[in-house]
């Protein structure tokens, strides 16, 4: 007696194999489609903007003459914005995550907070703009300064950082904590010396990705009423700034085709910044992740 009915196996093999290869090709086509879109986008931007991209473009203020215009003010503004967003959002975000994961008791209130943080991550960015306008620009009278813009952006990316940090802290094996406690370390010593160093790759990856989002956001800043044209650069955190996405948004709305090309060049600058930041995130992850 045959344990395997060869005939039926052969009969069923063919359709199963073809199903397998059909699904393989479908998913391959989907991947290619996504890449194609990316390719078209990059081609369009680079073919349009590359001609305007030179050192002068990076060193000039905006101008009514496309050949003199540049992104200097916006570039410096973006760096200033990051100087506020990075420390504020990382300190608040990592702090909250440590509290929620290490200290908070599992009860209804903690759960309520966790659910709401996840909800906040999905709130449209323009809503944060309205919040920033009411609280930072008007109520606290920061005006449309670096500080107001930075704090608004920090709030925007905060949920993302909290969730990423929570995941990273949760991923630290419990045995490490127990070993630390067993050696007589306090909770705080355990967190600072054991948990945080182990969680840092995850936290920083999430943090840098969140900062990349803050660099590219336009809507909240439009709502805040950030200026588009500045003939001066910021010196303190209470000065006004303009940032890259705003400058790009302004140029795309102009009637003259030259300004559209300038916008494309601005997008390239923004993309390069984003790619650099994301590469740092990848590097950090690869360097520190293989600890156990």
């Amino acid at each position: 007696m045959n344990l395997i009915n060869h005939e039926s196996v052969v009969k069923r093999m063919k359709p199963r194999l073809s199903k397998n290869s059909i699904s393989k090709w479908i998913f391959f086509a989907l991947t290619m489609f996504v890449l194609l879109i990316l390719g078209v986008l990059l081609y369009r931007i680079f073919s349009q903007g590359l001609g305007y991209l030179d050192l002068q473009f990076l060193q000039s203020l905006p101008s009514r003459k496309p050949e003199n215009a540049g992104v200097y003010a916006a570039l410096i503004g973006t760096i200033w914005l990051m100087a506020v967003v990075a420390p504020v959002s990382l300190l608040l975000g990592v702090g909250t995550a440590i509290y929620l994961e290490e200290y908070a008791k599992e009860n209804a209130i903690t759960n309520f907070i966790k659910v709401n943080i996840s909800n906040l991550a999905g709130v449209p960015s323009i809503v944060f703009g309205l919040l920033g306008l009411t609280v930072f620009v008007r109520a606290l009278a920061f005006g449309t300064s670096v500080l107001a813009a930075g704090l608004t952006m920090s709030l925007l990316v905060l949920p993302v950082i909290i969730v990423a940090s929570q995941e990273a802290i949760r991923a630290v094996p419990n045995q490490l904590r127990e070993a630390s406690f067993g050696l007589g370390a306090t909770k705080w010593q355990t967190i600072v010396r054991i948990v945080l160093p182990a969680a840092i790759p995850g936290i920083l990856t999430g943090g840098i990705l969140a900062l990349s989002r803050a660099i590219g956001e336009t809507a909240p800043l439009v709502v805040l009423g950030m200026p588009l044209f500045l003939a001066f650069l910021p010196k303190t955190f209470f000065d006004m700034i303009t940032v890259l996405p705003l400058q790009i948004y302004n140029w795309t709305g102009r009637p003259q085709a030259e300004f559209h090309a300038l916008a494309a060049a601005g997008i390239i600058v923004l993309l390069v910044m984003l790619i650099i930041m994301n590469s740092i995130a990848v590097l950090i992850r690869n360097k520190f992740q293989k600890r156990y």
Partner: protein
Amino acid sequence: MKSFKKLALTAMMTGVLAITAACGAQGTEGNKEQAGEEVKQLQGEIKIDGSSTVFPIMEAVVEEYGMTQPNVKVSVGSSGTGGGFEAFIAGETELSNASRPIKDEEATALKEKGIDYTEVQLAYDGLSVVVNKDNDWVESLTIEDLQKIWIEDGTTKKWSDINPDWPAEEIKLYSPGTDSGTFDYFDEVILDGKPIVEKATLSEDDNTLVQGVQGDKNAIGYFGYAYYAENKDTLKIVKIDGGEGPVEPTNETIESGEYAPLSRPLFTYVKNTAIKDQEEVYDFVKFLLENAATLSEDVGYVKLPEEEYTKQLDTLETLK
């Protein structure tokens, strides 16, 4: 542990780099300050916000002004006419750009806050009505025709409804969004407060409208003159008959007022106390009026007749 320290070091280095970059930037500005000392150097801060239509003119003026007065920090925003007035009422700005005259409720709100203002006319913009390049039937339209095309009356509009000789095909409409001053102006002179055709494509980005009309043989749209001027080769302009024969929008017909009623003035509103108390604001507005003619033509608008600027300069002197 070691790698953690390394990481902290990297983070610190990045911070130091950012600060150095910012300081370097200050240095270059400091050098600029030492140049040109012939003119009396003023100091201060001027905040401008408002219409995105007026923005290019202001940008050009501020750019030129920065060459004579580098220490006056001027910022220009573009939150739209309505958004600009909101900030103006809140006392956040000294100048508020507008592509329509101030509304009654805005004027009342300013009065309640005790803010006196002066209206300054900068230039004209001719709202241009355009159709597709392949449209060989429309040459000119009267105001009544425009109303027939743009006001919602429950029916599907066909070109043949306007003129029986024209094709019986549906008209595709492209209009600026209802938040824009351009729409407000069109609403005032053509729609007269009645609703715009529901099927019309509305967009805040005028380039979208340009593309829409370029791509559809049965399309009609309207937007600022500068957008037509930049796309002359790919769009067909419609002459407008305001009662005295069809007129095409050109720099001459807009400036002379012949292109009526679709040519509109562009404004900026200035806080009176700012002119009085802040020398840099007075100086800036003076510079603005002296240069608005050339600079507005530079960015695609139409200048006012010379005497309009002189008249406004005289008014400015009385406010000082």
